[in-house]
């Protein structure tokens, strides 16, 4: 399967990816609602770049008790009707990129909007193995 892949050495921390994700999937610009996490921050040791994206590990699909999250044709599909807001998916996601919203969750659907906005090629869509 192909999935979003992050290359920290190319990232400038502009967060256009997260603005794009929230705009595309939530209808407003709010980095906290983005289904990927990217940060570029100075620590005592210098500049630390960290990023997490959905790599289709599917832990959420396995954990979901109601089948609200499923994998269809290499993408996650989420059904709000089936979701009981149990929060299991959020807690098992190894990348921490499932967003707990006031109602329901946001999962990455590999729409690639983030990669389309990345100015440096730090986000790509590549074959992943688990």
């Amino acid at each position, binding site marked *: 399967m192909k999935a979003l892949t992050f290359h920290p050495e190319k990232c*400038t*921390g*502009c*967060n*256009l990816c997260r*603005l*794009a994700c*929230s*705009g*595309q999937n*939530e*209808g*407003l*610009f*709010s*980095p*906290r*609602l983005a289904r990927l996490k990217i940060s*570029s*921050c*100075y*620590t*005592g040791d*210098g*500049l630390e*770049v960290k990023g997490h994206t959905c790599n289709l590990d599917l832990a959420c699909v396995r954990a979901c008790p109601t089948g609200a999250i499923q994998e269809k044709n290499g993408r996650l599909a989420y059904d709000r009707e089936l979701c009981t807001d149990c929060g299991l998916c959020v807690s098992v996601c190894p990348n921490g990129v499932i967003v707990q919203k006031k109602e329901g969750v946001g999962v990455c659907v590999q729409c690639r*909007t983030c990669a*389309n*906005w990345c*100015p*440096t090629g730090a986000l790509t869509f590549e074959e992943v193995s688990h």
Partner: protein
Amino acid sequence: MSYTGKVLRVNLSNGKVQSEPLNEKWARDYLGGKGLSIKYLYEELPSGIDPLSPENKLILMTGPLTGTIVPNSGKLAVAAKSPATGTILDCSIGGRFAPELKYAGFDALIIEGKAGQPVILCIDDETVKLRDATPYWGKGAHETELALQETMAGYKFLLIGPAGENLVPMACISSELYRQAGRGGIGAVMGSKNLKAVAVRGSGGIKVPDIRKIMVALNKIRREDTMSDDNMWAYTDGTPMIVDLSQSTGILPTRNFQEGTFEDYQKINAEALRKALQAKKACLACTLACGNYVRQGKAVVEGPEYETLALCGSNCGIGDLEAVIEFNRLCDDLCLDTISTGNVVAYAMEMTEKGVHDFGIRFGEVQKYLEMPALIARREGIGAELALGVRALAEKYGGKHFAMQVKGLEMPGYEPRGSWGMGLAYGTADRGACHMRAWPAAVEAYGDLDAFTIEGKAELVKNMQDENAVKFSAIFCDFWALSLERQAEILSMILGRPVEADELKTIGERINNLARLFNEREGFTRRDDYLPERIHADKLTTGPTAGKLLPKEEYEKMLSEYYAIRGWDQDGKVTESKIKELGL
């Protein structure tokens, strides 16, 4: 909508916090950022107040684009009456604070009064609290911000260092360690309020009309306009690439503006810095990532920008890159503006060398030079004198002829004798000698226009000032050279109503006239719009500008023409008809 419609007002004297509606008429007339903050200050500050008294107000202003995906829209305007000049003062700072303030639900934060003891103002959406900052008082901005980000997850910060605490008129405000609201002593205003830091965290977002459609259009603009060859210098080398341009055109300030070229320029230029580059860093929503995190020997910094390389490098006779990087880091940590600090050190060096007054430091003396930032920020030893700034020092000790300042603000890195329009830009900028209100060097020294004529320069400067006022109000980063038409196109998308370029031009003009009215009310007139005598009297001696000066009578003519084009009288006063025309 893209404005949150709310302004947070905090009075540090009595702890009163209130959320009030944004003045929509003003937002329409002044957009946001620079323009809108000046409008609030003009309406709310009585004339003649002491900038370091509780009566001054510190305004943090976002714009209609802040927090959206519009490329290069992440900057914040920080405004107050300037303690360095007594003029209106607005600064621009990058990082992530501005979008976060919007996500917390506010277009602006107005800080009034003075806290009884050092505080940190913490804003978490609607919840506003004051925290004790006593443990951090006296500490550098770097140590403070690193400590705060350990305990306050998700917050973004604006801070001051010892320079601001000690009310030094060249103190800046810092964010993310290496971003600054630099000029005019804005950090001293914060310090005068006993405000060590502002922390903000927001859980909200910004809604705009037809968001998906707009995103497609904006991404095309980002690829084709923002990331065009005209702007990519910001990503590749950033501002250090200007060192070579200035050297080759003879406008690189050297040894307190005695010369326009520097024999060691290759030690402090973009090529030298390229070897030191560790990583690139951008502000939120910025596609150009001008931030260069560099390491040379033991010294690290994000920077140095061109202004620092020029004023703290060549202008101090320092051709040692590691030393300039370390000087830059010290200034950032202590929160000193590198333009003014480099200038004041260079002035002291010339005073000493010329035997006018012995400040104990000469051009090129690296060790002493590196001691200066801490002494100035803490007002210790010779630093207690240098902390007065160039203008006050010249009044006290002489050397007025080469006190390189306008209205009390020290001069940036573009020699006006080799770029005559720059002289007018410095003379007429609202906050004193500033290169960000208009930057004619780009088209004269570095471009095709004749740099040694006043022909057309008044109009050039006026137009640049008006267009830049729009950019700094919308808010777009200065490093995106975008047209007014493009700004109008983007604002139309985000505001959901048609905005025309002509309308923006009028807004830019309105902002500059209001800034002038503010200064006029403080007593500024034509006599304050002049350059230091050196520019008119001392011929440069090296490189392509050897033998050049900017004759005083030419400057007078250019200034008069500028007033005429502005529709001001010959004292530089805004006329009644102009006030009426612009609806001021």
